[in-house]
């Protein structure tokens, strides 16, 4: 059982409460909103849980301006329901709460060059580990005033500061959406299919490659837009219509590990060739992938191979002490990232 299940918890009702709590200088704090991704993070040890799940307000929804402000504990599904009433959507994949989605950004974009959480985050209200509230960015769709500190939320896993409110860019909901799923492909055929979709001036709104442990592949996703366009794309690429079939993540193997990384379509043949025969692979159209490996030894071998190929990977699901292990980063990048952590949370409170 995760330590989160038995940890001390502080439940915040608003930004002021978050600031007050952090102002008491707790030794170690783990931020949690919905909690759905906690098992993908390193074990928090004896940290106090700062629970944001009551921060569920849609503070502002400006339909005509296609922006909104939400609290970080708001479930994605609740926002989607509200947006549907005014013909809008948040065009990036991922569930859970909005805070968790942006802080973890586990999927990136769902299609080639498509919007990801980072491109939809216009600004935020947040609190430093020492309890100081601050804001970054703006509510409008364009602003280059000041440094984009809010972009640091994406992927920070709550370890640089605690975001409490997000200003988000929205897009019009498409008039027609049709899912597709082409199954029974070998890796080469699946990659060829992706290649052709990638070269479309208007690519699918979402696309992913799924390789099953038996080696068979599927290319699935959805086209969005006007009905005639969607129909033409499906016809042109021979893509069978299907029910919604998107997968955010691979199921973790019972005794194995899930490794995450990012790579281009062009590197998929090599990546795939380095996977054990019984491993599964999920590649998202934005470049992120997950590979489910049967044990830690094969995971380590895969991490090593990826590192040799210049592909950054890490264990995203496995034993607590293994999570986060294996990332290959540029030294300069790592130095900057460590420096940011020291600058914003000098006592290492947020874990």
């Amino acid at each position, binding site marked *: 059982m995760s330590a989160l299940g038995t940890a001390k918890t502080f439940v915040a009702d608003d930004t002021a409460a978050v600031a007050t709590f952090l102002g008491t200088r707790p030794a170690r704090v783990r931020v949690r909103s919905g909690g759905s991704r906690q098992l993908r993070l390193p074990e928090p040890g004896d940290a106090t849980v700062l629970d944001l799940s009551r921060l569920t307000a849609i503070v502002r929804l400006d339909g*005509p301006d296609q922006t909104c402000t939400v609290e970080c504990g708001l479930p994605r599904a609740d926002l989607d329901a509200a947006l549907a009433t005014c013909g809008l959507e948040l065009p990036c994949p991922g569930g859970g709460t909005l805070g968790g989605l942006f802080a973890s950004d586990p999927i990136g974009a769902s299609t080639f060059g498509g919007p990801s959480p980072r491109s939809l985050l216009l600004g935020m209200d947040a609190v430093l580990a020492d309890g100081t509230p601050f804001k970054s960015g*703006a509510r409008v769709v*364009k602003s*280059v*005033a000041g*440094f984009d500190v809010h972009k640091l939320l994406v*992927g920070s896993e709550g370890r640089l500061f605690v975001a409490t409110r997000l200003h988000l860019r929205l897009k019009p909901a498409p008039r027609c959406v049709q899912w597709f799923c082409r199954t029974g492909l070998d890796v080469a055929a699946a990659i060829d299919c992706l290649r052709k979709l990638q070269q*479309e*001036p208007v690519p699918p709104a979402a696309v992913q490659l799924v390789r099953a442990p038996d080696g068979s592949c599927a290319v699935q996703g959805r086209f969005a837009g006007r009905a005639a366009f969607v129909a033409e794309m499906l016809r042109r690429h021979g893509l069978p219509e299907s029910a919604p079939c998107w997968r955010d993540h691979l199921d973790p193997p019972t005794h194995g590990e899930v490794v995450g990384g990012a790579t281009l379509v062009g590197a998929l043949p090599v990546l795939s060739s380095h996977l054990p025969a019984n491993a599964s692979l999920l590649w998202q159209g934005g470049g992120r992938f997950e590979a489910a490996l049967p044990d830690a030894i094969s995971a380590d071998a895969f991490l090593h191979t990826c590192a040799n190929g210049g592909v950054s990977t890490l264990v995203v699901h496995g034993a607590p002490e293994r999570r986060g292990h294996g990332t290959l980063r540029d030294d300069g990048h790592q130095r900057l990232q460590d420096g940011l952590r020291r600058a914003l949370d000098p006592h290492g409170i947020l874990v």
Partner: protein
Amino acid sequence: MPRLESALVRLLGPQRVLTSPDALLAWECDGFTVHKSRPRAVVLPESTAEVQAVVRLLADAQVPFVPRGAGTCLSGGPTAGTTAVVLDLSRMRRVLRIETADLFAVVEPGVVNADLTAAVKHLGLHYAPDPSSQTVCTIGGNFAENSGGPHCFKYGMTQDHVLAALVVLPDGSLARLGSPAGSRLPGSVDLTALFCGSEGTFGIATEITVRLCRDQESVRTLLASFATMTAACRTVGDIVAAGLVPAALEILDQATIRAVEASVYRAGYPADAAAVLLVELDGPTAVVGEEAAEVRAAFARNGALRIEEATDPNERKRLWKGRKGAFGAMGRLNTDLYVLDGVVPRTRLEEALAGITAIGAKHGVLMTNVFHAGDGNLHPNISYDGRDAAATARTIAAGHEILQLCVDLGGSISGEHGIGTEKLDHVRMMYDAADLAVMAKVRAVWNPDDRCNPGKALPSRSACAESAKWPAMTARILRDEVRP
């Protein structure tokens, strides 16, 4: 010759180190001509290794430096104080790699924006961000400023198109941010996004990996004229409310139309119209056809006086000519032009424009408006005589009030031009001390002694002496005391 200059000459040769006052004249300002200052020297490196070597020399000597592309910035970003050395990156203009299958290119910072598109045009590709200065401005400058342009509403800003960068940090070390597979690597935060828009204060990008886009099958460009600005703005609202995402939604007001029509940029816009709205749609032919019909219907509902549609590439070029030449046309109106860059929620455009008109009248300045209506990104332009101190002061005072208006309406003091030196006094309209302290902490991680483009982007107390004067100088201008 002082020791530092001698060392720079040994490194780059005498042709690539400029120190004479006459030679430095071209680097005394960017497109924001209110603040001028000649740097100590200008160096012209041609490779990452040379940039590193220069930066290390400057670090050893504790001399501030300023990276610069083409100098088209409109906020004073690359204008250097007199103790600073400018690293002019315009000789680093190679396109290093083009990947047609994975749709990206790696370029040096001095590559001109439009040249990148020209380099990939034969492949059916283009680089989407296209600031109005795209035939001159560089990708490095665009990256530093997070530049926008008329196509942001659909295609986003520079930040949405940069995947990775190789950066020389102010101590001369290197950092590689992002990768062609995405600007954020798993297990890390998005330093590429953070760097983009840092206005040259975090380091110098010497290789930039950008996304390339496939050319669309069809492009349709429409222009409608209106009897009132209100009708033009409401048409924009109708188009957006219908769920359309045009590639461009640009409005020019009557004063701009008249300036354009009296200039070499004449495009045949109706000079009696209060506003013209330029709409560009792109995508699959059938889709664009349906969308064009909906746009025409929105024009009609809002009482458009005249509707034109380009029927061939030359016609399209003509319709754009007036918009792209608008800033040049304003050169006819007076000796100097102050281009503002505020943003408001799109739904408050009418209110903002009414307020801007009132502010212009209050200060007795000649105001024209051309703007990215889809983004709510306003460019009120004040034509003035920079030789007239009183006129300059009135101009800057009007600008200050306009930016305050944008903030009061829920917007921003800059949509795409940046803070530079121009808006150092305005940053506090949006951010309080705690917000700025966090930004300063972030900058200090990259640029701990504030030698890299000192005094820009954030109000700073530790900038080099000349830069530090600028905010105060702006305040004095606002008090009608002085012209820099």
